[in-house]
Each structure stands twice: as structure tokens, then as C-alpha cells.
């Protein structure tokens, strides 16, 4: 059992609080991704788990052991850095074996472990090279190899793919997923790329300004975001929002209307909402269809034709600008009027407090 438990973890630099009480349980073998915009504290949180940042308040348990004041090497963790941090003066072999050498592992055991790790990562032919003689993807592999030989209970990844080009990023992403399946270790992964988060994670933790916004399975975050922030952050292109007025409140629906759309009943939890309130309606770009009798009419601003789909930037009457993704190719002229419709159950109502009103 090498799960992690974070109990109201806090971190301040002077008077500035960057992690504002994070509670989180990570089960053994889980792949957890911390995601959020830059400056949200996701890297800091990871570094607190690693032991590279002091913990200002709260408790951190790794495999059931309180680790607040434990040295990084005794936490049973290994970390892969964004810059890879491969020692430039050592060969790949020495880089991978550095931790074992420091731990005074006998030479034959060390050699076997290094070669095992090299085999797992298919980099046996690189062992005699210096990091400067490797490509970005190969360096990435060595950095992971250095983590593997320590046989940690928890792997920590700090934006490991952000220095790779797009094609390599997809390949390496799959390799990391495979590695997780093979090793069965707990992995904590930090990224600002939501595609990485969606594809790799068993569980995503969305952070903003040092506060956990939502924790859940990727598809759960996509379908039932807890608030405006998560709704806007997860999903690409971004969810469209528009301010609307509540017209009527039913038992399981809220009927809204506004400058941009005529009256529509959305399935939602109406508790505490009364007619006349201003709420936010969120509709994903993919949920909108071209429909001559649609309730929303906008003017085409920008068209991106990708062949299999067409991304259109629409200007609504209230000056709000929406992104819409149509399947297939659509040849639209700038300034042309397009009418849109959407299935009411695909839309989400957010209260004035920014919290989603999902139907029960």
C-alpha cells in the first residue's frame, strides 16, 4: 500500500499563501494528474510531496507514514523533472545509476538494475553516451530510467513532456501510460495540458490559485464540471458561456432566456434559484448544431476549416463571442448569419456563485 494522503496541506512564502489547504487521497497504483493554469500551485504541490519544498501547514502521508519532515530520499519517491536534470558530465549509465551509487549499492546489483531499466525503456544502446549526445525524447527516457532504478513506490512527474515536439509528445505519453500499466506504481503527474490529463489520468485534480476545484475521473470532469472554472478549463475548445435570466423554475428544470437566445428549459437542480435571477449558461462547442430553426443566431467572425470539422467563431447579439465546432466541412462566409440549436440536457446552468447546478 503506497497511497498518498494530503490533509489540509498549506504552503506560504512569507505572507503569500500559494497552497490553501489541499485535501486529497491518492490510492495505491493510481495515476493522478494535477492540472491547472500556470501559477495555480500544481508544481509547488508536487514539490511538497517530493520534499523539495517545506510544508507550511497540514500533513502529508506517504504509504501511511507522516512525511512532513522526512528527507526526499527516504520518502520512497522518484521524480522526473521538466528539464530532465541529467548530469551533463556523466554518461547515461552513470546518470541512471547515480542514486544507487550514493546508496552504496554493490556494483553487480547496480549494474543489473541499470541494465534492467535500460531494457524496459529500450535504451540499452544509449548507455555509454553523454546527455548532450541524445535527442529530447531520449533524454526524457533516461530521466524516467533514473526514476525506475530507484524502484520507488510513488513516481512524480513535473511537466515531463513540455520540452518535446508535438509528435514525440504523443508517443511518450503512450509510453508513460504503458509504463504505469507495467509497473503498477502510484504516479502523480503535473501538466497544464488538458489532453495529457484526460488521456493519462485515472483521476484528475483541477487546481486554481492554490485551491482544489474538483477531483474526479476525466470524463466526469468533462460531463459534470463542479464550477465555471473547471467547465472552462476542461474540454477543447473551451465551453461557451452566456449570461441569462431565469424565467421560470420547474421541479427539475430551469427555464432561461436572454438577449442571445429565446426561452429554453434546461434540466438542472433549481434549489435556491428563483425567477429573475441572473445565471450563466454553458454550452460546449461540440454540442451546438447548425439548424435553421435554432434558438441562437450569430454572425460568423472567423472560420477554421480542418476538413473533418470546422471551428467557427460566432458573434452573438450581446457581443459575446462563441466557438462552435461543426462536424465535416462547412464553407461559411465571414459576416454570414448562422442559426444554432443544442440539446437542453447538454447545457449546464451555473448559479451566481459560479457553482454548477447539475440535475440530481
Amino acid at each position, binding site marked *: 500500500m503506497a497511497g498518498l494522503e494530503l490533509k489540509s496541506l498549506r504552503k506560504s512564502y512569507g505572507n503569500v499563501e500559494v497552497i490553501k489547504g489541499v485535501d486529497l487521497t491518492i490510492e495505491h497504483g493510481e495515476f493522478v494528474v494535477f492540472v491547472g493554469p500556470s501559477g495555480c500551485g500544481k508544481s509547488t504541490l508536487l514539490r511538497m510531496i*517530493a*520534499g*523539495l519544498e517545506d510544508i507550511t501547514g497540514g500533513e502529508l502521508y506517504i504509504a501511511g507514514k507522516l512525511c512532513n519532515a522526512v*528527507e*526526499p*530520499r527516504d520518502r520512497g*519517491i*522518484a*521524480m522526473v*523533472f521538466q*528539464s530532465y*536534470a541529467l*548530469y*551533463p*558530465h556523466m554518461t547515461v549509465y552513470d546518470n541512471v545509476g*547515480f*542514486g544507487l551509487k*550514493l*546508496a552504496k549499492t554493490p556494483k553487480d546489483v547496480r549494474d543489473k538494475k541499470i541494465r534492467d531499466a535500460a531494457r524496459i525503456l529500450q535504451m540499452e544502446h544509449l548507455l555509454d553516451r*553523454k546527455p*548532450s549526445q541524445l535527442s529530447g525524447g531520449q533524454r526524457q527516457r533516461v530521466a524516467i530510467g*533514473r526514476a525506475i532504478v*530507484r524502484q520507488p513506490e510513488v513516481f512524480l512527474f513535473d511537466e515531463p513532456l513540455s520540452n518535446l515536439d508535438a509528435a514525440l509528445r504523443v508517443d511518450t505519453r503512450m509510453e508513460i501510460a504503458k509504463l504505469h500499466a507495467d509497473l503498477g506504481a502510484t504516479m502523480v503527474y503535473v501538466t497544464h495540458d488538458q489532453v495529457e490529463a484526460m488521456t493519462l489520468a485515472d483521476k484528475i485534480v483541477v487546481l486554481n490559485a492554490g485551491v482544489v476545484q474538483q477531483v474526479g475521473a476525466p470524463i466526469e470532469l468533462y460531463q459534470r464540471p463542479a464550477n465555471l472554472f473547471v467547465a472552462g478549463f476542461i474540454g477543447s475548445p473551451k465551453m461557451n458561456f452566456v449570461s441569462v435570466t431565469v424565467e421560470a423554475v420547474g421541479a427539475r428544470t430551469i427555464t432561461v432566456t436572454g438577449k442571445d437566445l429565446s426561452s429554453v428549459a434546461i434540466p438542472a437542480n433549481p434549489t435556491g434559484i428563483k425567477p429573475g435571477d441572473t445565471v450563466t449558461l454553458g454550452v460546449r462547442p461540440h454540442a451546438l448544431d447548425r439548424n435553421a430553426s435554432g434558438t441562437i443566431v450569430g454572425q460568423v467572425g472567423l472560420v477554421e476549416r480542418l476538413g473533418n470539422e470546422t471551428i467557427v467563431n460566432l458573434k452573438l447579439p450581446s457581443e459575446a463571442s462563441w466557438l462552435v465546432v461543426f462536424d465535416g466541412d462547412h464553407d461559411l462566409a465571414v459576416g454570414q448569419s448562422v442559426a444554432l440549436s443544442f440539446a437542453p440536457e447538454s447545457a449546464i446552468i451555473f448559479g451566481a456563485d459560479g457553482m454548477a447546478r447539475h440535475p440530481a
Partner: protein
Amino acid sequence: MAVMTETAAAVPVVQVPKRRSPYPASFFLPAAVIYGVLFLLPTFASLYFSLTRWTLFNSTFIGLDNFAQFLREPFLIKGLINTVLYAVITSGLKVVLGLLLAVLLTSQIAARGYLRSVVFFPVLVSTVGVGITFTILMHPTQGMINEALAVIGIKGPGWLVNPSLALFSVALVDVWKGVGLATVIYIAGIVAIPKDYYEAARIDGSTKWQSFLYVTLPLCRPATVTVILLSFIGGLRTFDLIWAMTRGGPGFASDTVASVIYKQYQAGFYGLSTAGNVVLFILIAVLVVPLTMLLNRREGHE
């Protein structure tokens, strides 16, 4: 090669004009004049004058006689040994102390900025001033150093009057004065090492000492090379501090090649002392060129 030729044949080559315009060359003329007058001319003139009997007003060509006489100087061998010894001691101590001070001054200590200035300050003081000050401080009976030692019951040595100690005393003062520059070079080298390496080492279980050994030391190698070369060349050429503190004495105990040359110059043997300078130039080249090649070859990991 074959591929290249093919490409060259396939692509029509733009004809390069045969005669280049002299206009761009005119831009380096001012620098060339300054370099020629202040560097090339004196260098070749001194090569010529080293082959003459020279009174500053007229010179008679005498072939290699000056060199023969310079190498016959009774204390030249002593001076040569002293010069190399001085260069090795000062550059060695500057490397070790400079690195230690730089590690200290890049760590989280109080008054770091102030202490950095303190360490660098002696570099800014005039060498002759430092020499005179330390000559007074190192006076065998009334000097402050020996008086301080006497307080704790140690009888201080005759720093500058003991023939077997004088050269080392001057070398110590040279290190005191020059270590600030070495420290600054090392500080620049150390702060350029990415923090990630230390963090990765920490996670791998490295102690502070091991991080120094396996991360700081190898990665500030370019700084080490710079410090060694600068202080070694400086040590071989040393003159001002020796002259200010001992004038090569007592006797000839702390004479270096440069002070031997200066004494000949004072005595009016201009051709002879110029020949001595040529010898010193060759000595520096013979020692430093292989050293540079050795240090830079091992650097080849970048």
C-alpha cells in the same frame, strides 16, 4: 562528397565577384593601427633589441650574446624555480580558497552581499599599497601579525626576513589580494548551475557534500579552468608585489625572473633585460600552452 558535387552542379552557383571591394577592410584599420603601434611594433622591436647592446639611444647588433649572458646569471636558476613555485602556490591556493569562498557566498548566509564586497575589496587596492602595508604588518618584532601571535603565546616567524620563508609570505599576500577575483569567477560559475541538478541529486539521496562533489565541482569546471589559467599566468609574471615587499631579498631568496630582469634594467643593461623578457615570454608560453590544452581537452563534455 559526391552528393555535394552533384548538388553544386544542379544548382546554378551565383558568381562571387573576383575582386572584393576594399571598403569593408577600412573598418578595421583604426583598430589595426592601434594594435600595430601598441602591440606588434614593441613586440618585434623587443625581439630585435634583445639581440643588441642597447643604450636607449643607439644599439649594436651582438647576436645571441645577451641570451647567453642572461642564462649565465648566477641566480637565474633560483629565480626560475621561485617563479614557477610562486605561480603554482598562488594559483593553487586561489582555486581552493576561491571555490570555498564562492560556495559559502552562494549559500543562504546572512549579509551575503556585504561579505561578497569584503572578499572582492582587496582586488581593488593598489598592489604596491598592499605590499607596503603587509611589509609593516609582517615586521618580525613590531609587526601586528607577530604581536597578535605573541598574545596567544606563539613566537611568530620572520615572515619577510627569513630567506626560506620570504617567498611564501609574499605568495600569501598575493593570495589575499587576488582571491577575490577567483571567488567572483566561481560565484558566476556556481549560480549558473541549474537548481534542478541539486534537487535531482537530493531526491537520489545525495548529502550536501556529495552534491558538492558530484554536481558543483564538475559543473563549475569552466570557472576552474579560467581561475587556474588567469592566476597561473599572473603568478609567472609576478613582479610588483615582490618588489614592494622584498626586492627579491633577503639576498636573492625571493627573486623571480621578473625581478632579476628589473635589476638588470636598473643597472642599465637594456639589451640584456630585454633578452630576459623574451626568455620569460617563452617560459610562460611553454608552461601555459600545454596546460590550456590539457584543461580544455578534458572539458569536452559540452
